[in-house]
């Protein structure tokens, strides 16, 4: 339980939907084909100085612009703390560095790819960009990286060390990572049907990517999106224990006032577990499968949090084609459930403010 009120004061996202300019909220959802869904991206040169952008890989550009979008919304120029979660880190630069290492027999290595190949490049490059000298951390904890970044942000705010924190989650899919994950049998081998929700009767998921950033703070303002009320992270638990935990959480659902954003990723065995856990809610709240819009990646729950924030602020609900505005809507709570590999599970609760 979060001990102090924590509000989402700004939110920015770059994803497989047009989230960066928010047309995603008004237009029909983009239905991708194939098993690798890339981001809908802005012209980064409009956001980042050309001298800086030349060294930045795509995921760093996504982080930078998503962070700028979130900060712009609450007129924040320099965050007191920057915390990022990433499951796989800067894969493009890692591959570039490693391939040059092999090609040049461990000599004459380019410093740029090396510097940017480390995971903590994500938070540190934001600190350099915004000239932030405060707390700076990148969490790399597989599929609960974003949740752990959120937890760190919450602890900082609860302890009163800072009043505003920039926190986000980001991951990229590259040619090499897609190829390796395909060979490992993680990615589905059959061509995906271009539909929302994606069919879940096959093995393997669809690779996605994205970066979503938030400014969290203790003060509620007119611009605040929603209140963050719970972040629960459970690793290595038996599935029956997860179901019990889910049962307690989902028992709080008030019918008609809650929506669940669920992390079904299209893989039949994974989705079976997700369904079992969420069955503890006894169908009291509608379930929307958010990865059907952004694909599967370790920090996709950050995309779900961006969705949840906008759903609560604008009182809109997702359908299979797009968001709809509900008259006299009374949406109070969004519950985000994210699990992959049946090892790491997380719940994020967000409430209307």
């Amino acid at each position, binding site marked *: 339980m979060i001990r102090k009120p924590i509000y989402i004061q700004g939110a920015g996202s770059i994803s497989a939907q047009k989230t960066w300019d928010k047309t995603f909220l008004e237009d029909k959802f983009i239905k991708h084909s194939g098993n690798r869904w890339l981001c809908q991206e802005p012209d980064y040169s409009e956001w980042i100085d050309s001298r800086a952008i*030349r060294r930045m890989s795509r995921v760093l550009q996504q982080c930078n612009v998503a962070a700028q979008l979130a900060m712009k919304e609450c007129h924040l120029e320099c965050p007191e703390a920057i915390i990022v979660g990433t499951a796989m880190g800067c894969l493009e630069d890692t591959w570039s560095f490693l391939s040059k290492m092999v090609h*040049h027999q461990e000599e004459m290595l*380019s*410093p*740029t790819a090396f510097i940017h190949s480390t995971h903590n490049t994500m938070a540190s490059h934001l600190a350099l960009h915004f000239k932030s000298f405060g707390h700076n951390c990148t969490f790399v904890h597989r599929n609960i990286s974003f949740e752990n970044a959120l937890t760190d942000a919450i602890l900082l705010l609860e302890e009163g060390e800072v009043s505003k924190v920039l926190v986000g989650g980001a991951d990229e899919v590259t040619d090499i990572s897609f190829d390796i994950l395909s060979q490992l049998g993680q990615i589905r081998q059959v061509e995906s049907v271009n539909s929302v929700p994606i069919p879940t009767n096959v093995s393997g998921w669809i690779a996605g990517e994205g970066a979503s950033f938030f400014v969290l703070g203790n003060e509620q303002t007119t611009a605040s999106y929603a209140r963050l009320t719970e972040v629960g992270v459970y690793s290595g638990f038996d599935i029956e224990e997860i179901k019990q935990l889910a049962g307690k959480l989902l028992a709080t659902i008030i019918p008609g006032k809650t929506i669940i954003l669920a992390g079904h990723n299209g893989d039949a065995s994974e989705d079976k577990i997700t369904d079992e856990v969420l069955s503890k809610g006894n169908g009291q709240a509608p379930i929307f499968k958010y990865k059907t819009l952004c694909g599967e990646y370790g920090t996709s729950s950050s995309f779900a949090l961006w969705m949840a924030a906008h759903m609560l602020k604008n009182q809109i609900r997702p359908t299979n084609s797009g968001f709809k505005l509900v008259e006299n809507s009374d949406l109070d709570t969004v519950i985000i459930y994210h699990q992959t590999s049946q090892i790491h599970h997380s719940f994020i609760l967000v409430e209307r403010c």
Partner: protein
Amino acid sequence: MNELKENLKRQIVDQLNLKDIKPEDIGDDTPLFVEGLGLDSIDALEMIVLLQQQYGIKMVSSEEGPKVFRSVNSMAEFIESQKGSQ
């Protein structure tokens, strides 16, 4: 010498991923750092790698750097002088 300078300009643009600059935009005597192309210390490291990869020249003294990397002209002269000494 002219061919060497043209090659150097192209290699600098490629190695440093200079998005808004074409090789022909770089004058033979344009300062590469600070007020010229605005390159920085990481670029200096990339240029050292460039010399080694493309021309087989190892910079042994860090004091040589500012003089060698002042412009395309100075880089070309340095490469020529190293060819002569090898």
